């Protein structure tokens, strides 16, 4: 069976610096990889490689066997970044409509409304994004990333700016997507949050996995202590 996400010896260099260095892993449907690491460890670069936004210097990344950045692979990926990736002059609904149109969704209005409701931002959907708070913008950004119900959801510090209600909505959404068979990669600095969602956990440092294991049975407190030792 083909893994939904498969990275083989991924390397990405910027000049002489190896931002991602020999990264290999697989995720099946319903898997969630929690990716931890200090700033500059290469987590965001890894996600950009898996989104097809960066070309690897060597190695391959595939989505359900299709090599990135093929259109048929990208269509199955959703990306939540720490940047909101929205047009601030447009409303939340217009931003999502634009995304739905780019993805050629069959019932765009239904998909847009569903995504807005999932993030509990439907009541502010017709307000220009620039008039929303940072937290509400982040909710709209997440709604934009899931409007096409991607099979692979890449989340780069998705809880940034979210209040408690937004965090709860996001956690519920990620669980729901995982149970529906999506593969998730969640980059976060919150170990408890990441481990609670994950089926696999990995720690990155200097572009490499220095630790990668199934997360079942991992004690969060002990993991946190070992994490501090590893990245110190």
């Amino acid at each position, binding site marked *: 069976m083909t893994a939904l996400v498969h990275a083989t010896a991924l390397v990405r260099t910027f000049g002489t610096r190896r931002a991602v260095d020999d990264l290999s892993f697989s995720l099946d449907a319903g898997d969630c990889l929690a990716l931890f690491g200090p700033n500059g460890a290469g987590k965001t670069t890894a996600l950009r490689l898996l989104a097809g936004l960066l070309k690897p210097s060597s190695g391959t990344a595939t989505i359900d066997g299709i090599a990135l950045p093929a259109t048929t692979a990208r*269509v199955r*990926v959703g990306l939540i970044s720490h940047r909101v990736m929205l047009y601030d002059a447009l409303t939340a609904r217009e931003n999502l409509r634009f995304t739905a149109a780019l993805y050629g969704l069959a019932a765009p209005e239904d998909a847009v409304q569903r995504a807005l409701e999932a993030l509990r931002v439907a009541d502010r959907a017709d307000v220009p994004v620039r008039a929303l708070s940072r937290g509400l913008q982040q909710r709209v950004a997440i709604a934009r990333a899931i409007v096409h119900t991607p099979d692979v959801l890449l989340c780069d510090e998705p809880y940034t700016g979210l209040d408690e209600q937004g965090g709860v909505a996001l956690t519920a959404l990620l669980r729901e997507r995982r149970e529906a068979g999506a593969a998730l990669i969640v980059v976060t600095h919150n170990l408890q949050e990441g481990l609670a969602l994950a089926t696999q956990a990995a720690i990155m440092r200097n572009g490499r996995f220095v630790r990668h294991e199934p997360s079942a049975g991992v004690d969060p407190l002990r993991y946190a202590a070992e994490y501090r030792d590893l990245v110190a």
Partner: protein
Amino acid sequence: MTDPTRGILVSAWVIARKDLAIEFRTRSAFLSAIVFTLLSIVVFFFAWDPTAVGPLDLAPGVLWVTFTFSGMLGLHRAFAVEARDGAMDALLLAPVPRESIFLGKLLANLAFVLGVQTVALPAVSLFYNLPLGAAALPIAGVLVLASIGLVSVGTLFAGMTANTRMTELLLPVLALPFFIPVVIPAAQSTADLLAGRPLADVFVWLRILLAFDLVFLFACTVAFPFTLED
């Protein structure tokens, strides 16, 4: 479910519509370009000595110099809206061919430039007391042909310079030399048409414009995806 096989033109239209909606909502670049255009025409008018140069000799040059520089304002805007908050990443992640991003931007830029020209042409005609009359329609054709060429090259360079630190400086430095082969036939054919020469006399210039449009529209569309490589 999604249909990733949709055509380049459909995706381009979606992107152009979004850009025009943003410009319609903010009107910042369009109003700036209109004000710049009218001010330029006024400056040229007051610097003009009618006893030395006739209006028919000066007006085409004023018209095309003004169009060329005001168009730059629209070209800057095209990719600035994508750079803010990382929206370009969402566009690149979407299952649309890179060429459709270029064509979408080109369509929006073309609408922007033609919008500016619909204000500038009557203004030049008014200031220089030009008899547009029967020449209005052929001149409109020249404007459209020349705009396609200018916008094709300009959109490519706007995309290339969008992520550089000196985009406002680099874009005109790179694009203006490529605009010369468009501005010369455009100004010449405008002068001929304003002077009342028959359409057959300007065909040679129109053919140059058409050839430039075809070559650069194709070349810039093909080259654009390479400007997005990291």
